[in-house]
């Protein structure tokens, strides 16, 4: 039973691993190019564990921005996870406090997405091993990129870059198939995000926050009676 659960979690984590690894290789290469040490590059990925914000931090370092500015930017970029954890908290209720301290660390966009549409009850063990799979892809990719440089052919890196988007789509498809409202909301969210990025007045990460707030409000108030789709 326990072994099965771990196996399922790792299986669910494989697509995340596949997507994270080449992106992390790119991060490792870039970090080295920016003059960080191996330990620093490793720590970036191991303790921050938030892709986009790590790339942004390297860019800002190169522009000479100080730590305070970079940390504030990181807070803004990663604040969307607040909403994702808020959702996950509805599916992981009444656990010991220390369990939350552990599980909260691994809430990335992709981990959140996979967990959201996992149709069985979420257990701390499942969540932990899914997060661990994702984390290992991110950390091992970073170290490989730093040490080995551009060892992956460019064409492979690029095509593997599609994996994360394909993963998100594949996760969403059953819900899209089951309800028109879901299609409407997902398209609205995609359209709104494209528009907001075009308009270019929000800091990085906040277009997604606005999309989540607006679309979830629409979903919750205009279409309150959707049943199962995201049941616990």
């Amino acid at each position, binding site marked *: 039973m326990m072994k099965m659960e771990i196996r399922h979690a790792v299986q669910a984590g494989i697509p995340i691993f596949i997507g994270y690894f080449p992106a992390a290789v790119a991060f490792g290469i870039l970090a080295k190019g920016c003059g960080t040490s191996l330990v620093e590059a490793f*720590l970036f990925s191991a*303790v921050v564990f938030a892709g986009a914000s790590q790339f942004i*931090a390297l860019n800002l370092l190169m522009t000479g921005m100080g730590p305070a500015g970079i940390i504030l930017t990181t807070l803004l970029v990663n604040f969307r996870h*607040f909403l994702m954890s808020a959702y996950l908290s509805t599916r992981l209720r009444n656990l010991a406090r220390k369990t939350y301290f552990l599980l909260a660390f691994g809430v990335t966009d992709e981990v*959140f997405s996979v967990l959201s549409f996992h149709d069985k009850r979420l257990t701390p063990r499942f969540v932990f091993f899914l997060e661990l799979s994702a984390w290992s892809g991110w950390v091992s990719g970073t170290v490989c990129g730093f040490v080995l440089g551009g060892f992956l052919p460019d064409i492979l890196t*690029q*095509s593997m870059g*599609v994996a994360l988007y394909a993963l998100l789509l594949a996760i969403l498809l059953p819900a899209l198939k089951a309800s028109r409202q879901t299609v409407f909301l997902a398209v609205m969210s995609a359209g709104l995000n494209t528009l907001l990025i075009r308009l270019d007045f929000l800091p990085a990460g906040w277009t997604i926050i606005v999309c989540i707030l607006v*679309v979830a409000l629409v979903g919750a108030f205009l279409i309150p009676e959707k049943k199962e789709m995201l049941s616990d």
Partner: protein
Amino acid sequence: MTDSLIPLIFGMAAVTYVPRLMPFLLLNRLRIPYRVNAFLKVIPVAAIGALIVPGVLTATPELPAAALAGMGFTLVYGLFRGGIIVPVLGAVGVAWLVLAFFG
């Protein structure tokens, strides 16, 4: 770079971790009103659309059509057969083929 980046890294880690943690601590024992719960429950759908678009258009920067072809495979295969691993690996394969032939 001569200064150690380690304080910066732990600062970034802290401001990333705290927003990931707070909702769990705040909400887990609270009775959540029906409307709020309805809102929270739609968050995944509301997030995923924006997480895919427009990012996917720059997944294969040299030839966006490659990423789109890959996503097309995911869409068709996923709609008819479902699953995760095959749609994902298939998308990577299709994108690779398009890049190899047209890139």
